[in-house]
């Protein structure tokens, strides 16, 4: 039987998997000091002023039967308790509130310290798409605003 040569590769090939543990150290560092994408421009809508931020610049992901893109929304002005229900979706047009309210996809949740949303999204994002925020207040008002998709998000979507 051929005897393996006692060279560096043969000596260390089985231990090279240990590099994975070094990666764990690097990933721990990135977890402790997370980097988020830039926030988008604040928009006034009714009594509210909202600043959105996508959690990452990745393409939408498939979850619970739909494509989803996660956002963090800061309500700089306005009381989130006065929102009866609110939804965030991505598309060429805003979806009617009745359509959104029939399901629970894209509903805003959280607190006055920050709202989160798994926004309903198309599989692929294009420059024709916008991010739509639909808010219904307890007074019955339906408020709508939107943001264009930044290039940083579009370039990762293909």
């Amino acid at each position, binding site marked *: 039987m051929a005897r393996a040569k006692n060279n560096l590769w043969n000596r260390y090939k089985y231990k090279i*998997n240990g590099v994975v543990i070094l990666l764990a150290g690097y990933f721990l560092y990135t977890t402790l000091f997370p980097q988020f994408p830039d926030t988008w421009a604040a928009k006034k809508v009714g009594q509210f002023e909202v600043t959105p931020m996508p959690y990452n610049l990745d393409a939408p992901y498939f979850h619970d039967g739909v494509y989803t893109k996660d956002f963090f929304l800061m309500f700089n002005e306005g009381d989130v308790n006065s929102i009866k229900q609110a939804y965030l979706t991505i598309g060429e047009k805003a979806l009617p509130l009745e359509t959104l309210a029939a399901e629970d996809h894209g509903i805003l*949740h959280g607190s006055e310290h920050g709202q989160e949303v798994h926004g309903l999204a198309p599989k692929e994002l294009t420059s024709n798409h916008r991010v739509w925020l639909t808010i219904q207040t307890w007074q019955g008002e339906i408020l709508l605003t939107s943001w264009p998709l930044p290039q940083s998000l579009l370039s990762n979507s293909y």
Partner: protein
Amino acid sequence: MAKLSNRFLFQLHGWFSLPVWIVFCFVCLTGTIAVISHEITWLTNTNARALNPDNLPEKKVTELIDTVESAYPTAKITTALSFEPYLVNAVIFTDSDKPYAIAYVNQYTGEIQEVNQGFTFINFMRALHGWLYFPWQNSYSVGYYLVCAMAIVMLGALITGLLVYKNFWRAFTQPKLRVNQGKKTFLADLHRLAGVWSVWFLLLMSLTGLWYLVQAIMWQNDIEIDPHPPIVAVNDLPSGSQIPQRAYSLQDALTITQQKFPDFKSRYVMPPEHYRDTYKFYGEGDFIFYDQYSYGVTVNPWNGEIMSTRSPDEMNVVQTLSHIANPLHYGTIGGIWTKIIWFIFGVFLTGMSITGFLMWGERTFKAAKRQQHLTETESVSVSNNTKSSVSV
């Protein structure tokens, strides 16, 4: 044929565990520590201890939440968790100056003993063992798959190990650990002895590990195990232009839950995150092999209706597997005593990966070194002989 297959099995045993031995050993070691991470926290942090010198009765989780809300009036409670009776409850909240904080509340005295800003040893160990801190790509993590794949390694090493070690059951009746016959013999005896006594544990870890692998594939492919609880229909929300108060409080919802499941012991409470959301309670009952979230009730805050339930009686096969895997893998089925047993066998397992590597090292490069040394000695003696013959 028998000889050939034995040699092949021995090689296979090595192939299963050697190429990834460092990661394998690391996963065993971190898992071993993770099993008792709550207890290590208890030992190292007095604030994490739920001391009860006056023998007070345990307060309801809703009271503990009220305590945190009173102490931090702008806080919003996101979750409340309870663990072993000797550990404080964790009330998790966000506040204007804290994006994520955990209040350690003593369930007997009601005292907030610490406010941790989110990073705990328990979570650190679990993430390190569970997915090696590899980032989650929404529904999967490469690290989670890597760790789950160790189950295949472990099962393969176990089966081939038992096939190679003929009459392995003798290790139960006539355990053999020869300490005076050289390092090789000692390592081999130790490896085999620990292996045979750990067969049940190796099987349990590898089978639950294989289940975690299946679960990971299901997550990535969006196959739901426990269905999402429904949300409140818009028509069930109150009309009127004022911001309404929920008709049923968290305490009312807990009472409704306990009426539904009389043995219910709350472990995880989640207040509504928006006005169409429900109160969510998950806990344990009297089925010891099921995890601490195997009972669940979601309650409509506007009309007190139970929106969904979860209990071992209602579970399908996949749900049952998902709820019995954790207690078996974590060793929590019998409280601290089973955790200690799991820890001891975790040490054996970690040790086996080390002794296995050392045995392989003895057999390969130490043998190669000895061979090299012998060759060099021979060549020196040959050259000396040549020199002496020349001089003569």
